[in-house]
Protein backbone atom coordinates (compact mmCIF):
# COMPACT_ATOMS: atom_id res chain seq x y z
CA UNK A 1 0.00 0.00 0.00
CA UNK A 2 2.84 2.30 1.01
CA UNK A 3 4.73 1.42 -2.21
CA UNK A 4 1.69 2.25 -4.31
CA UNK A 5 1.22 5.61 -2.66
CA UNK A 6 4.96 6.37 -2.99
CA UNK A 7 4.82 5.50 -6.70
CA UNK A 8 1.90 7.88 -7.04
CA UNK A 9 3.83 10.69 -5.42
CA UNK A 10 6.85 10.05 -7.67
CA UNK A 11 4.59 10.51 -10.69
CA UNK A 12 3.32 13.79 -9.23
CA UNK A 13 6.86 14.91 -8.40
CA UNK A 14 8.27 14.11 -11.83
CA UNK A 15 5.41 15.78 -13.71
CA UNK A 16 5.54 18.89 -11.53
CA UNK A 17 9.32 19.10 -11.32
CA UNK A 18 9.84 18.69 -15.05
CA UNK A 19 7.59 21.66 -15.82
CA UNK A 20 9.04 23.83 -13.07
CA UNK A 21 12.58 22.98 -14.16
CA UNK A 22 11.77 24.04 -17.71
CA UNK A 23 10.30 27.31 -16.48
CA UNK A 24 13.46 28.06 -14.51
CA UNK A 25 15.57 27.09 -17.54
CA UNK A 26 13.56 29.50 -19.68
CA UNK A 27 13.95 32.22 -17.14
CA UNK A 28 17.69 31.81 -16.66
CA UNK A 29 18.90 31.52 -20.24
CA UNK A 30 18.01 35.17 -20.60
CA UNK A 31 20.25 36.10 -17.66
CA UNK A 32 23.02 33.73 -18.70
CA UNK A 33 23.05 35.25 -22.20
CA UNK A 34 22.72 38.83 -20.91
CA UNK A 35 25.96 40.01 -22.53
CA UNK A 36 25.17 38.75 -26.05
CA UNK A 37 21.52 39.85 -25.76
CA UNK A 38 22.63 43.37 -24.87
CA UNK A 39 24.60 43.64 -28.11
CA UNK A 40 21.67 42.35 -30.19
CA UNK A 41 18.71 44.22 -28.77
CA UNK A 42 20.03 47.43 -27.27
CA UNK A 43 21.93 50.28 -28.95
CA UNK A 44 25.53 49.16 -29.06
CA UNK A 45 27.35 52.50 -29.14
CA UNK A 46 27.69 52.34 -25.35
CA UNK A 47 28.31 48.74 -24.24
CA UNK A 48 27.86 49.54 -20.55
CA UNK A 49 24.48 51.16 -21.15
CA UNK A 50 23.49 48.21 -23.30
CA UNK A 51 24.52 45.74 -20.62
CA UNK A 52 22.77 47.65 -17.87
CA UNK A 53 19.66 47.90 -20.00
CA UNK A 54 19.64 44.14 -20.15
CA UNK A 55 20.09 43.95 -16.41
CA UNK A 56 17.14 46.30 -16.10
CA UNK A 57 15.14 43.98 -18.30
CA UNK A 58 16.29 41.18 -16.03
CA UNK A 59 15.07 43.19 -13.04
CA UNK A 60 11.78 43.80 -14.88
CA UNK A 61 11.47 40.05 -15.17
CA UNK A 62 11.84 39.83 -11.41
CA UNK A 63 9.81 42.83 -10.35
CA UNK A 64 6.78 41.58 -12.25
CA UNK A 65 6.84 38.17 -10.56
CA UNK A 66 4.70 39.17 -7.54
CA UNK A 67 1.99 40.33 -9.96
CA UNK A 68 2.07 36.91 -11.60
CA UNK A 69 1.81 35.41 -8.12
CA UNK A 70 -1.34 37.43 -7.42
CA UNK A 71 -2.97 36.80 -10.80
CA UNK A 72 -2.26 33.09 -11.10
CA UNK A 73 -2.45 32.45 -7.36
CA UNK A 74 -6.02 33.73 -7.41
CA UNK A 75 -6.83 31.51 -10.41
CA UNK A 76 -5.25 28.51 -8.70
CA UNK A 77 -7.36 28.96 -5.59
CA UNK A 78 -10.50 29.51 -7.67
CA UNK A 79 -10.30 26.91 -10.46
CA UNK A 80 -7.54 24.57 -9.36
CA UNK A 81 -3.81 24.06 -9.17
CA UNK A 82 -3.40 21.78 -12.19
CA UNK A 83 -5.01 23.99 -14.85
CA UNK A 84 -3.31 27.10 -13.58
CA UNK A 85 0.20 25.77 -13.72
CA UNK A 86 -0.44 24.34 -17.17
CA UNK A 87 -1.30 27.84 -18.38
CA UNK A 88 1.86 29.28 -16.82
CA UNK A 89 3.95 26.58 -18.50
CA UNK A 90 2.62 27.43 -21.96
CA UNK A 91 2.94 31.15 -21.35
CA UNK A 92 6.56 30.79 -20.29
CA UNK A 93 7.46 28.45 -23.17
CA UNK A 94 5.80 30.68 -25.76
CA UNK A 95 7.49 33.84 -24.48
CA UNK A 96 10.91 32.16 -24.38
CA UNK A 97 10.60 30.78 -27.90
CA UNK A 98 9.56 34.18 -29.22
CA UNK A 99 12.53 35.93 -27.59
CA UNK A 100 14.67 33.64 -29.73
CA UNK A 101 12.78 34.80 -32.83
CA UNK A 102 12.87 38.60 -32.35
CA UNK A 103 15.02 40.29 -35.04
CA UNK A 104 17.94 42.34 -33.78
CA UNK A 105 18.07 46.09 -33.14
CA UNK A 106 20.03 46.56 -36.37
CA UNK A 107 17.12 45.03 -38.35
CA UNK A 108 13.98 46.49 -36.76
CA UNK A 109 15.27 49.28 -34.54
CA UNK A 110 13.60 50.09 -31.23
CA UNK A 111 10.81 47.57 -31.85
CA UNK A 112 13.36 44.87 -30.93
CA UNK A 113 14.14 45.93 -27.34
CA UNK A 114 10.45 46.75 -26.74
CA UNK A 115 9.36 43.28 -27.88
CA UNK A 116 12.07 41.65 -25.77
CA UNK A 117 11.02 43.67 -22.75
CA UNK A 118 7.35 42.66 -23.19
CA UNK A 119 8.24 38.99 -23.60
CA UNK A 120 10.48 39.19 -20.55
CA UNK A 121 7.57 40.61 -18.58
CA UNK A 122 5.41 37.67 -19.69
CA UNK A 123 8.13 35.30 -18.51
CA UNK A 124 8.13 36.99 -15.11
CA UNK A 125 4.33 36.75 -14.85
CA UNK A 126 4.39 33.05 -15.76
CA UNK A 127 7.09 32.26 -13.24
CA UNK A 128 5.14 34.14 -10.59
CA UNK A 129 2.27 31.72 -11.10
CA UNK A 130 4.21 28.51 -11.64
CA UNK A 131 6.13 27.94 -8.45
CA UNK A 132 3.28 28.31 -5.96
CA UNK A 133 1.17 25.94 -8.02
CA UNK A 134 3.82 23.24 -8.26
CA UNK A 135 4.77 23.47 -4.58
CA UNK A 136 1.13 23.41 -3.45
CA UNK A 137 0.26 20.57 -5.82
CA UNK A 138 3.10 18.36 -4.56
CA UNK A 139 2.54 19.23 -0.89
CA UNK A 140 -1.16 18.40 -1.16
CA UNK A 141 -0.26 14.93 -2.47
CA UNK A 142 2.44 14.22 0.15
CA UNK A 143 1.96 12.65 3.60
CA UNK A 144 1.95 15.39 6.24
CA UNK A 145 5.08 14.15 8.01
CA UNK A 146 7.09 13.97 4.76
CA UNK A 147 6.21 17.25 3.12
CA UNK A 148 9.70 18.68 3.55
CA UNK A 149 11.22 15.70 1.75
CA UNK A 150 8.76 15.55 -1.15
CA UNK A 151 8.55 19.29 -1.80
CA UNK A 152 12.36 19.54 -1.71
CA UNK A 153 12.38 17.87 -5.14
CA UNK A 154 10.52 20.91 -6.46
CA UNK A 155 13.13 23.05 -4.72
CA UNK A 156 15.92 21.45 -6.72
CA UNK A 157 14.37 22.61 -9.98
CA UNK A 158 15.50 26.23 -9.73
CA UNK A 159 19.13 25.20 -9.38
CA UNK A 160 18.89 22.37 -11.89
CA UNK A 161 17.18 24.78 -14.31
CA UNK A 162 20.11 27.17 -13.97
CA UNK A 163 22.53 24.25 -14.41
CA UNK A 164 20.74 23.01 -17.55
CA UNK A 165 20.73 26.52 -18.98
CA UNK A 166 24.52 26.75 -18.47
CA UNK A 167 25.04 23.30 -20.03
CA UNK A 168 22.88 24.07 -23.08
CA UNK A 169 24.68 27.37 -23.64
CA UNK A 170 28.09 25.77 -23.18
CA UNK A 171 27.15 22.91 -25.56
CA UNK A 172 25.87 25.37 -28.18
CA UNK A 173 29.09 27.40 -27.89
CA UNK A 174 31.15 24.22 -28.24
CA UNK A 175 29.34 23.00 -31.35
CA UNK A 176 29.31 26.36 -33.13
CA UNK A 177 32.12 28.71 -34.03
CA UNK A 178 32.31 31.93 -31.96
CA UNK A 179 31.14 33.90 -35.03
CA UNK A 180 28.15 31.60 -35.65
CA UNK A 181 27.19 31.68 -31.97
CA UNK A 182 27.33 35.47 -31.96
CA UNK A 183 25.43 35.69 -35.25
CA UNK A 184 22.52 33.30 -34.59
CA UNK A 185 23.64 30.47 -32.26
CA UNK A 186 22.64 32.33 -29.08
CA UNK A 187 19.00 31.89 -30.23
CA UNK A 188 19.24 28.07 -30.08
CA UNK A 189 18.78 27.76 -26.26
CA UNK A 190 15.56 29.81 -26.61
CA UNK A 191 14.24 27.63 -29.44
CA UNK A 192 15.01 24.39 -27.59
CA UNK A 193 12.63 25.51 -24.86
CA UNK A 194 9.50 25.01 -26.96
CA UNK A 195 10.24 21.28 -27.40
CA UNK A 196 10.75 20.79 -23.67
CA UNK A 197 7.57 22.71 -22.87
CA UNK A 198 5.44 20.65 -25.25
CA UNK A 199 6.71 17.39 -23.73
CA UNK A 200 6.09 18.64 -20.20
CA UNK A 201 2.62 19.89 -21.16
CA UNK A 202 1.67 16.41 -22.41
CA UNK A 203 2.86 14.84 -19.14
CA UNK A 204 1.08 17.37 -16.94
CA UNK A 205 -2.14 17.06 -18.93
CA UNK A 206 -2.50 13.47 -17.74
CA UNK A 207 -2.21 14.35 -14.06
CA UNK A 208 -5.22 14.70 -11.74
CA UNK A 209 -6.13 17.73 -9.69
CA UNK A 210 -4.78 17.91 -6.11
CA UNK A 211 -6.96 15.57 -4.00
CA UNK A 212 -7.23 18.06 -1.13
CA UNK A 213 -8.35 20.84 -3.49
CA UNK A 214 -10.82 18.55 -5.31
CA UNK A 215 -12.37 17.54 -1.98
CA UNK A 216 -12.64 21.15 -0.81
CA UNK A 217 -14.21 22.14 -4.13
CA UNK A 218 -16.71 19.29 -4.00
CA UNK A 219 -17.70 20.36 -0.49
CA UNK A 220 -18.00 24.03 -1.54
CA UNK A 221 -15.17 25.03 0.82
CA UNK A 222 -12.97 26.89 -1.67
CA UNK A 223 -12.56 30.64 -1.52
CA UNK A 224 -14.72 32.97 -3.62
CA UNK A 225 -12.31 35.90 -3.28
CA UNK A 226 -8.78 34.63 -2.55
CA UNK A 227 -7.14 38.07 -2.82
CA UNK A 228 -9.45 39.62 -0.25
CA UNK A 229 -9.19 36.66 2.10
CA UNK A 230 -5.40 36.57 1.78
CA UNK A 231 -4.53 40.24 2.12
CA UNK A 232 -7.69 41.97 3.31
CA UNK A 233 -7.97 39.73 6.35
CA UNK A 234 -5.74 40.92 9.21
CA UNK A 235 -5.24 37.43 10.63
CA UNK A 236 -3.90 36.08 7.34
CA UNK A 237 -2.01 39.26 6.40
CA UNK A 238 0.11 39.04 9.53
CA UNK A 239 1.24 35.57 8.42
CA UNK A 240 1.99 36.85 4.92
CA UNK A 241 4.21 39.56 6.44
CA UNK A 242 5.84 37.07 8.80
CA UNK A 243 6.56 34.69 5.93
CA UNK A 244 8.09 37.55 3.94
CA UNK A 245 10.21 39.25 6.58
CA UNK A 246 10.99 36.22 8.71
CA UNK A 247 11.84 33.78 5.93
CA UNK A 248 11.58 34.49 2.19
CA UNK A 249 13.35 37.87 2.25
CA UNK A 250 16.47 36.35 3.82
CA UNK A 251 16.16 33.19 1.77
CA UNK A 252 15.90 35.26 -1.43
CA UNK A 253 19.14 37.19 -0.88
CA UNK A 254 21.05 34.05 0.17
CA UNK A 255 19.79 32.29 -2.96
CA UNK A 256 20.81 35.08 -5.31
CA UNK A 257 24.18 35.63 -3.64
CA UNK A 258 25.10 31.96 -3.91
CA UNK A 259 23.95 31.42 -7.45
CA UNK A 260 24.07 34.77 -9.22
CA UNK A 261 26.23 37.22 -7.35
CA UNK A 262 28.97 34.56 -7.17
CA UNK A 263 28.82 34.25 -10.96
CA UNK A 264 28.79 38.01 -11.53
CA UNK A 265 31.63 38.48 -9.00
CA UNK A 266 33.82 35.88 -10.72
CA UNK A 267 33.18 37.36 -14.16
CA UNK A 268 33.15 41.10 -13.59
CA UNK A 269 35.10 41.74 -10.38
CA UNK A 270 37.69 38.95 -10.65
CA UNK A 271 37.67 39.06 -14.50
CA UNK A 272 37.78 35.27 -14.82
CA UNK A 273 37.18 33.94 -18.29
CA UNK A 274 33.46 33.43 -18.90
CA UNK A 275 33.51 29.75 -19.97
CA UNK A 276 35.67 28.84 -16.99
CA UNK A 277 33.19 30.55 -14.65
CA UNK A 278 30.27 28.69 -16.22
CA UNK A 279 32.12 25.39 -15.85
CA UNK A 280 33.14 25.87 -12.22
CA UNK A 281 29.70 27.15 -11.28
CA UNK A 282 28.16 24.14 -13.01
CA UNK A 283 30.34 21.75 -10.96
CA UNK A 284 29.47 23.51 -7.69
CA UNK A 285 25.75 23.41 -8.52
CA UNK A 286 25.90 19.75 -9.45
CA UNK A 287 27.66 18.82 -6.21
CA UNK A 288 25.40 20.99 -4.09
CA UNK A 289 21.98 20.15 -5.52
CA UNK A 290 21.42 16.83 -3.65
CA UNK A 291 21.53 18.81 -0.42
CA UNK A 292 18.14 20.38 -1.20
CA UNK A 293 16.65 16.94 -0.64
CA UNK A 294 18.86 16.28 2.40
CA UNK A 295 17.76 19.46 4.14
CA UNK A 296 14.13 19.04 3.03
CA UNK A 297 14.14 15.57 4.58
CA UNK A 298 15.90 16.84 7.71
CA UNK A 299 13.30 19.59 8.09
CA UNK A 300 10.66 16.89 8.57
CA UNK A 301 12.72 15.58 11.50
CA UNK A 302 14.03 18.68 13.30
CA UNK A 303 11.86 21.51 11.97
CA UNK A 304 11.97 23.92 9.04
CA UNK A 305 12.83 26.99 11.12
CA UNK A 306 16.02 25.51 12.60
CA UNK A 307 17.48 24.62 9.22
CA UNK A 308 16.51 27.77 7.38
CA UNK A 309 17.78 30.09 10.11
CA UNK A 310 21.04 28.14 10.48
CA UNK A 311 21.63 28.56 6.74
CA UNK A 312 20.95 32.30 6.99
CA UNK A 313 23.25 32.73 9.99
CA UNK A 314 26.11 30.86 8.32
CA UNK A 315 25.71 33.04 5.23
CA UNK A 316 25.73 36.25 7.29
CA UNK A 317 28.89 35.23 9.16
CA UNK A 318 30.84 33.67 6.30
CA UNK A 319 30.09 35.70 3.15
CA UNK A 320 32.88 38.24 3.68
CA UNK A 321 35.60 35.67 4.48
CA UNK A 322 34.47 33.52 1.53
CA UNK A 323 34.53 36.37 -0.99
CA UNK A 324 37.83 37.70 0.35
CA UNK A 325 39.38 34.26 -0.15
CA UNK A 326 37.84 34.00 -3.63
CA UNK A 327 39.34 37.36 -4.63
CA UNK A 328 42.77 36.61 -3.17
CA UNK A 329 42.92 33.16 -4.79
CA UNK A 330 43.29 34.69 -8.26
CA UNK A 331 44.74 38.07 -7.29
CA UNK A 332 47.42 38.69 -9.94
CA UNK A 333 49.30 41.12 -7.67
CA UNK A 334 50.27 38.20 -5.43
CA UNK A 335 51.58 36.02 -8.31
CA UNK A 336 54.96 35.97 -10.12
CA UNK A 337 55.05 36.75 -13.85
CA UNK A 338 56.95 34.63 -16.32
CA UNK A 339 56.46 36.30 -19.68
CA UNK A 340 54.54 39.05 -21.38
CA UNK A 341 53.83 39.71 -25.00
CA UNK A 342 51.81 42.45 -26.54
CA UNK A 343 50.71 42.34 -30.13
CA UNK A 344 48.50 44.54 -32.25
CA UNK A 345 45.67 42.06 -32.59
CA UNK A 346 43.31 43.78 -34.94
CA UNK A 347 41.47 46.88 -36.00
CA UNK A 348 38.00 47.86 -37.08
CA UNK A 349 38.31 51.05 -39.10
CA UNK A 350 34.56 51.35 -39.69
CA UNK A 351 34.09 51.68 -35.94
CA UNK A 352 37.29 53.72 -35.63
CA UNK A 353 39.10 51.40 -33.28
CA UNK A 354 42.41 49.58 -32.95
CA UNK A 355 43.04 47.00 -30.27
CA UNK A 356 46.04 45.26 -28.74
CA UNK A 357 46.08 42.05 -26.76
CA UNK A 358 48.79 41.56 -24.19
CA UNK A 359 49.17 38.10 -22.64
CA UNK A 360 50.93 37.35 -19.39
CA UNK A 361 51.88 33.99 -17.92
CA UNK A 362 52.46 33.30 -14.20
CA UNK A 363 54.66 30.72 -12.50
CA UNK A 364 51.68 28.88 -10.96
CA UNK A 365 50.01 28.38 -14.33
CA UNK A 366 47.59 31.31 -14.18
CA UNK A 367 47.19 33.18 -17.48
CA UNK A 368 45.97 36.71 -17.99
CA UNK A 369 45.30 38.78 -21.06
CA UNK A 370 44.45 42.43 -21.40
CA UNK A 371 42.68 43.74 -24.47
CA UNK A 372 43.28 47.45 -24.87
CA UNK A 373 41.12 49.22 -27.41
CA UNK A 374 41.80 52.70 -28.73
CA UNK A 375 38.74 54.47 -30.14
CA UNK A 376 39.25 57.32 -32.59
CA UNK A 377 36.80 60.04 -33.47
CA UNK A 378 37.42 60.61 -37.19
CA UNK A 379 35.84 64.06 -37.14
CA UNK A 380 38.54 65.24 -34.70
CA UNK A 381 42.22 65.96 -35.50
CA UNK A 382 44.60 63.08 -34.65
CA UNK A 383 45.25 62.88 -30.93
CA UNK A 384 41.94 64.53 -30.02
CA UNK A 385 38.64 62.81 -29.30
CA UNK A 386 40.56 59.59 -28.64
CA UNK A 387 39.89 57.31 -25.71
CA UNK A 388 41.19 54.01 -24.46
CA UNK A 389 39.47 51.12 -22.68
CA UNK A 390 40.98 47.97 -21.23
CA UNK A 391 39.39 44.63 -20.53
CA UNK A 392 41.28 42.01 -18.57
CA UNK A 393 40.57 38.28 -18.66
CA UNK A 394 42.10 35.80 -16.23
CA UNK A 395 42.25 32.04 -16.63
CA UNK A 396 42.72 30.37 -13.26
CA UNK A 397 45.10 27.43 -12.90
CA UNK A 398 43.73 23.98 -12.00
CA UNK A 399 44.37 24.27 -8.26
CA UNK A 400 42.81 27.75 -8.00
CA UNK A 401 39.86 26.55 -10.06
CA UNK A 402 39.06 23.84 -7.52
CA UNK A 403 39.48 26.28 -4.66
CA UNK A 404 36.88 28.49 -6.34
CA UNK A 405 34.58 25.51 -6.96
CA UNK A 406 34.76 24.71 -3.24
CA UNK A 407 34.03 28.31 -2.20
CA UNK A 408 31.03 28.54 -4.53
CA UNK A 409 29.86 25.09 -3.37
CA UNK A 410 29.79 26.29 0.26
CA UNK A 411 27.50 29.10 -0.85
CA UNK A 412 25.28 26.60 -2.68
CA UNK A 413 25.04 24.64 0.59
CA UNK A 414 23.73 27.77 2.33
CA UNK A 415 21.21 28.04 -0.51
CA UNK A 416 20.07 24.45 -0.01
CA UNK A 417 19.60 25.06 3.73
CA UNK A 418 17.41 28.13 3.32
CA UNK A 419 15.62 26.98 0.17
CA UNK A 420 15.19 23.22 0.63
CA UNK A 421 12.49 23.40 3.32
CA UNK A 422 10.78 26.64 2.26
CA UNK A 423 8.01 25.19 0.06
CA UNK A 424 6.76 22.96 2.89
CA UNK A 425 7.16 25.87 5.33
CA UNK A 426 4.98 28.18 3.20
CA UNK A 427 2.37 25.56 2.35
CA UNK A 428 1.84 24.74 6.04
CA UNK A 429 1.54 28.39 6.99
CA UNK A 430 -1.66 29.02 5.01
CA UNK A 431 -5.07 27.29 4.79
CA UNK A 432 -5.87 25.25 1.68
CA UNK A 433 -8.52 27.58 0.28
CA UNK A 434 -6.15 30.56 -0.11
CA UNK A 435 -2.83 28.70 -0.09
CA UNK A 436 -1.78 29.30 -3.71
CA UNK A 437 -2.35 33.07 -3.45
CA UNK A 438 -1.01 33.53 0.08
CA UNK A 439 2.21 31.59 -0.31
CA UNK A 440 3.05 32.84 -3.82
CA UNK A 441 3.19 36.52 -2.91
CA UNK A 442 5.77 36.40 -0.06
CA UNK A 443 7.79 33.88 -2.04
CA UNK A 444 8.01 36.08 -5.13
CA UNK A 445 8.48 39.36 -3.27
CA UNK A 446 11.28 37.74 -1.26
CA UNK A 447 12.92 36.11 -4.25
CA UNK A 448 11.91 38.30 -7.17
CA UNK A 449 12.34 41.69 -5.57
CA UNK A 450 14.70 41.38 -2.58
CA UNK A 451 16.71 38.65 -4.31
CA UNK A 452 16.29 39.68 -7.94
CA UNK A 453 17.56 43.21 -7.34
CA UNK A 454 20.65 41.94 -5.56
CA UNK A 455 22.99 41.92 -8.61
CA UNK A 456 22.07 45.54 -9.49
CA UNK A 457 22.31 46.87 -5.92
CA UNK A 458 25.50 44.98 -5.07
CA UNK A 459 27.16 46.06 -8.32
CA UNK A 460 26.20 49.66 -7.48
CA UNK A 461 27.77 49.34 -4.01
CA UNK A 462 30.98 47.87 -5.46
CA UNK A 463 31.21 50.62 -8.10
CA UNK A 464 30.74 53.34 -5.47
CA UNK A 465 33.39 51.80 -3.23
CA UNK A 466 35.81 51.50 -6.15
CA UNK A 467 35.32 55.16 -7.08
CA UNK A 468 35.98 56.07 -3.44
CA UNK A 469 39.30 54.10 -3.67
CA UNK A 470 38.24 51.66 -0.96
CA UNK A 471 40.91 48.91 -0.75
CA UNK A 472 38.31 46.23 -0.10
CA UNK A 473 35.82 47.61 -2.64
CA UNK A 474 35.07 44.10 -3.92
CA UNK A 475 33.46 43.13 -0.58
CA UNK A 476 31.12 46.12 -0.38
CA UNK A 477 28.42 44.52 -2.54
CA UNK A 478 27.92 41.93 0.19
CA UNK A 479 26.45 44.46 2.61
CA UNK A 480 23.07 44.21 0.90
CA UNK A 481 22.58 40.43 1.40
CA UNK A 482 24.19 40.55 4.85
CA UNK A 483 21.92 43.32 6.15
CA UNK A 484 18.73 41.89 4.61
CA UNK A 485 19.51 38.36 5.82
CA UNK A 486 20.34 39.67 9.31
CA UNK A 487 16.96 41.40 9.61
CA UNK A 488 15.18 38.30 8.32
CA UNK A 489 17.15 36.04 10.70
CA UNK A 490 16.23 38.19 13.72
CA UNK A 491 12.54 38.32 12.80
CA UNK A 492 12.45 34.59 12.07
CA UNK A 493 14.22 33.71 15.30
CA UNK A 494 11.91 35.75 17.51
CA UNK A 495 8.54 35.67 15.77
CA UNK A 496 8.36 32.28 14.05
CA UNK A 497 7.10 29.48 16.24
CA UNK A 498 6.65 25.80 15.47
CA UNK A 499 2.91 26.38 15.56
CA UNK A 500 3.06 28.96 12.71
CA UNK A 501 4.68 26.54 10.37
CA UNK A 502 2.66 23.41 10.93
CA UNK A 503 -0.84 24.59 11.59
CA UNK A 504 -2.49 23.71 8.26
CA UNK A 505 -2.95 20.31 6.59
Amino acid at each position, binding site marked *: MRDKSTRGIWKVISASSMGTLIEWYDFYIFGSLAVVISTKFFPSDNP*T*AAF*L*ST*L*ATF*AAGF*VVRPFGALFFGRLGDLIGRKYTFMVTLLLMGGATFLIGCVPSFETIGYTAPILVLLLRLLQGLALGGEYGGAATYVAEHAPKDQRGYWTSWIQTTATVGLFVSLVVILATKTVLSPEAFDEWGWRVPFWISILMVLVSYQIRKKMHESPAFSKAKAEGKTSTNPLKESFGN*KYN*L*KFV*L*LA*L*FGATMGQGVVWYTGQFYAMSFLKTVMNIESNQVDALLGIALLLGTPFFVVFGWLSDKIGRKTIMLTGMLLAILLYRPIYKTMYQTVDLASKTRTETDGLPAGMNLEKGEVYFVSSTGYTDGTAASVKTTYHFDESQPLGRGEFKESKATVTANESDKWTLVFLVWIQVIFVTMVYGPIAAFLVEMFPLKIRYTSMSLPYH*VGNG*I*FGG*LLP*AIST*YLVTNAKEAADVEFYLEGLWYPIIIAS*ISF*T*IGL*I*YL*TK*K*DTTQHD
Partner: protein
Amino acid sequence: MDALKKILGIVWIGLALAAAYFGIFNFGLPKLSTGKQEDLVFGIIILFVLTPLIVAGLAIFGWYALKGEYDNRKL
Protein backbone atom coordinates in the same frame (compact mmCIF):
# COMPACT_ATOMS: atom_id res chain seq x y z
CA MET B 1 9.05 36.44 24.64
CA ASP B 2 5.75 38.26 23.95
CA ALA B 3 7.14 41.41 25.61
CA LEU B 4 10.26 41.26 23.45
CA LYS B 5 8.12 40.87 20.31
CA LYS B 6 6.19 44.01 21.25
CA ILE B 7 9.28 46.09 22.05
CA LEU B 8 10.92 45.06 18.79
CA GLY B 9 7.81 46.35 17.02
CA ILE B 10 9.20 49.84 17.64
CA VAL B 11 12.53 48.79 16.10
CA TRP B 12 10.80 47.55 12.92
CA ILE B 13 8.85 50.79 12.59
CA GLY B 14 12.09 52.74 13.12
CA LEU B 15 13.79 50.58 10.53
CA ALA B 16 10.96 51.29 8.09
CA LEU B 17 11.52 55.03 8.56
CA ALA B 18 15.29 54.63 8.11
CA ALA B 19 14.68 52.57 4.95
CA ALA B 20 12.41 55.36 3.66
CA TYR B 21 15.11 57.96 4.24
CA PHE B 22 17.94 55.96 2.64
CA GLY B 23 15.75 54.62 -0.16
CA ILE B 24 14.53 58.07 -1.16
CA PHE B 25 17.44 60.39 -0.41
CA ASN B 26 20.52 58.16 -0.74
CA PHE B 27 19.57 55.75 -3.49
CA GLY B 28 16.42 56.86 -5.34
CA LEU B 29 16.41 60.63 -5.95
CA PRO B 30 20.16 61.08 -6.62
CA LYS B 31 19.94 58.38 -9.28
CA LEU B 32 17.00 60.03 -11.02
CA SER B 33 18.88 63.28 -11.50
CA THR B 34 22.12 61.99 -13.07
CA GLY B 35 20.65 61.90 -16.59
CA LYS B 36 22.08 58.45 -17.31
CA GLN B 37 19.69 55.80 -18.64
CA GLU B 38 20.96 53.01 -16.37
CA ASP B 39 20.71 55.24 -13.29
CA LEU B 40 17.16 56.22 -14.21
CA VAL B 41 15.99 52.59 -14.33
CA PHE B 42 17.78 51.80 -11.08
CA GLY B 43 16.36 54.90 -9.38
CA ILE B 44 12.80 54.16 -10.49
CA ILE B 45 12.96 50.57 -9.23
CA ILE B 46 14.43 51.62 -5.89
CA LEU B 47 12.05 54.56 -5.46
CA PHE B 48 8.79 53.01 -6.63
CA VAL B 49 9.20 49.28 -5.96
CA LEU B 50 11.77 48.34 -3.34
CA THR B 51 11.42 51.29 -0.96
CA PRO B 52 7.59 51.28 -0.71
CA LEU B 53 7.63 47.51 -0.17
CA ILE B 54 10.17 47.63 2.63
CA VAL B 55 8.71 50.73 4.23
CA ALA B 56 5.02 49.78 4.11
CA GLY B 57 5.64 46.10 4.86
CA LEU B 58 7.98 46.65 7.78
CA ALA B 59 5.83 49.44 9.22
CA ILE B 60 2.70 47.27 9.18
CA PHE B 61 4.66 44.32 10.56
CA GLY B 62 6.09 46.52 13.32
CA TRP B 63 2.66 47.93 14.13
CA TYR B 64 1.14 44.45 14.40
CA ALA B 65 4.05 43.38 16.62
CA LEU B 66 3.62 46.42 18.83
CA LYS B 67 -0.10 45.73 19.18
CA GLY B 68 0.57 42.15 20.27
CA GLU B 69 -0.76 40.46 17.14
CA TYR B 70 2.23 38.08 17.19
CA ASP B 71 1.73 37.08 20.83
CA ASN B 72 1.66 33.32 21.25
CA ARG B 73 -2.00 33.26 22.26
CA LYS B 74 -3.03 35.06 19.06
CA LEU B 75 -1.18 32.77 16.64
